[in-house]
């Protein structure tokens, strides 16, 4: 894979000298926490490896990563701790991998959540993306496997996608290290607050549910003025999610 062309940034001296330092498993003294989420088999672990320089095992079957893997990198004087979450299709059920992913985004309060999606299966992948955007408002979409999409003649309008989702979208082919420098820059911009996201909120919901969610969400906001995901908590309460009910009672959300 070394014979493949790199992006200009990666060949640029300044970039390499001042910018990126892969820190492997050394996750001490970090400035920002970055979560890596996404459907199974979208190349999350490959992105993780590209960022940290680690060689976490990757495999072409859904559910490869069942535990959290952690690594770190440094970019322009800031240290980022990267947490690779298990790949899941959704965050609505209660299997162990989905709980690990959801709880980290919810309680681990990452500074940035990078959602890795397969450009070839965007529609199916958006299911998870839209759920994550209800939980956190600091996210980056990494549109991975662009090389395969190109081969499959799929063209994606990046700007329109970014506008609809309300978060930055970075096209990438992590296997060939394409798009990784841009991804790092975007992560850093979101973490530092240079980019402010206005994440998409789920719209196509029946009126009565929307109304119920609004009432609950307002009450939750009153109680916890600083949380970004009162709407999502309302969803979970309506679902009867005991873990969230317990979390509310114990005040974890404060």
């Amino acid at each position, binding site marked *: 894979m070394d014979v493949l062309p790199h992006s200009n940034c990666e060949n640029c001296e300044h970039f390499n000298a001042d910018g990126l330092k892969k820190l492997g498993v050394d996750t001490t003294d970090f400035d920002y926490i970055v979560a890596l989420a996404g459907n199974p088999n979208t190349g999350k672990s490959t992105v993780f490896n590209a960022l940290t320089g680690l060689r976490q095992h990757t495999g*072409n079957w859904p559910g490869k990563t069942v535990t959290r893997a952690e690594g770190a990198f440094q970019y322009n004087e800031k240290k980022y701790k990267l947490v690779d979450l298990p790949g899941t299709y959704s965050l609505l059920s209660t299997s162990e991998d989905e709980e690990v992913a959801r709880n980290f985004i919810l309680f681990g309060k990452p500074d940035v959540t990078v959602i890795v999606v397969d450009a070839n299966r965007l529609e199916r992948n958006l299911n998870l993306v839209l759920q994550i955007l209800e939980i956190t408002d600091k996210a980056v979409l990494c549109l991975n496997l662009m090389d395969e999409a190109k081969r499959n*003649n799929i063209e994606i309008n990046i700007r329109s996608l970014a506008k609809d989702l309300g978060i930055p979208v970075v096209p990438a082919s992590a296997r060939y290290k394409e798009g990784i420098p841009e991804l790092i820059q975007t992560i850093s911009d979101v973490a530092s607050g240079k980019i402010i996201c206005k994440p998409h909120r789920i719209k196509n919901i029946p009126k009565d549910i929307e109304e119920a969610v609004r009432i609950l969400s307002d009450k939750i906001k009153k109680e916890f003025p600083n949380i970004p995901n009162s709407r999502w908590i309302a969803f979970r309460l309506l679902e009867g999610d005991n873990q969230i009910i317990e979390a509310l009672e114990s005040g974890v959300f404060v």
Partner: protein
Amino acid sequence: MDKKNIHNIIALANELRWKIGDDFHDNLAEGIYADAAEIVEDAIIDKNRDRKERLDNKIDRIVTSRVWGFPIMFSILALVLWITIKGANYPSAFLADILLGDVRPMLKSFAASLNFPWWLSGFLIDGVYLAVAWVIAVMLPPMAIFFPLFTLLEDFGYLPRVAFNLDYLFKKSGAHGKQALTMSMGFGCNAAGVVATRIIDSPRERLIAIITNNFSLCNGRWPTQILLATIFIGAVVPASLSSIVSLGAVFGIAVLGIFFMFFVSWALSKTLLKGEVSTFNLELPPYRPPDFWRTIYTSIIDRTLIVLWRAIVFAAPAGAVIWLISNLYIGEQSIAAWMIHYLDGFGFLIGLNGVILLAYIVAIPANEIVIPTILMLTVLVTGLNVGEGAGVMFELDSVNDTASVLKAGGWTLLTAINVMLFSLLHNPCSTTIYTIYKETKSMKWTVLASILPVIIGFVVTFVVAQLWRIFVN
């Protein structure tokens, strides 16, 4: 934050939930899909829509077809086994040469130069060191071949197709289709297979997958199967057929394991773990050419060495125990001899003998050391003049030597077949047992998962022994 307000919110949520009805979950899911469809409508131009189907679909139609799916699966399994068995021979012999031929005498003379008492050098070198050396020599080469091969299949995208093919059988046996993936992992290492069950959503089906993972013949047990098949089963047919027949016997044991996996899954889902089979979406990922060298590298580092390290950690104390029970005497006999004596009766009943049973007890930490332990204990009991002395594990240089020791120990074709069966059907190794406990956090299920295979093993070997004695002898 006010506790009372929180309670009010939760009470309100309960009330609203009742009002909006049962369809909430489905409505929300549909809403999300509708949003996704709108966004994609704007953003994607798929020039493909009307074009001819992709190559992936063509491959899938063959490897997941009713006719070819199973034959292809079994041939791939057989091919992987064959490469592993054939390829592991040479590096195994090479490692054994170095670790036992060169390093061990060096350690011995080093101990002598420091004036170690005999029991200390015996305990450390003949006990602990030898056990570790055997595990490395016997286990490392097959793992270093098997895991990368398996990983290449994984990276290519074949495993989800296996799950797809087997889904129907799993559903019939009341288990989760993803168990096909964890079962395949088990062929490498049961502990790894047990950890992999985390991909199964429902606790009931996950427990079934954990309890039955042991029926996947793991790497540590392949060498035992291969050796015995070669000595005893390959020998009853003409020489030209012997390697095919012995490979067939080993393959048959592996398939028998799969059969028991389905059978026990079914039995559990009808009794202790009753419940609905859950449905799931299994995405068949696109085939991707594996990144060959990277795959080899990571699978050796990530899997082979980690699994090997665990085996070593458990083999060292086992080596010490073997040496101790053979060298500590109670009255006239060593502890090992006493235990063999007591186990002999029960052993005969199930077509085995006391030596084999004791070897399995001692080798709970690591299945790899079963054969060397059996040989060592056999020599101890028969008083043959080969090997290295009391409590020293060894493996004889040639298959013929091994055969003659085992035959002197009273082994017949029945013994060999039953040891092969028992090697498939016995308790998981201690690493796996510990992993099961960590994953289930339940003593009850851990005990069940450990005991159940042994009971099945006793029943099967007992039946085989009785039938054999009636019809063959």
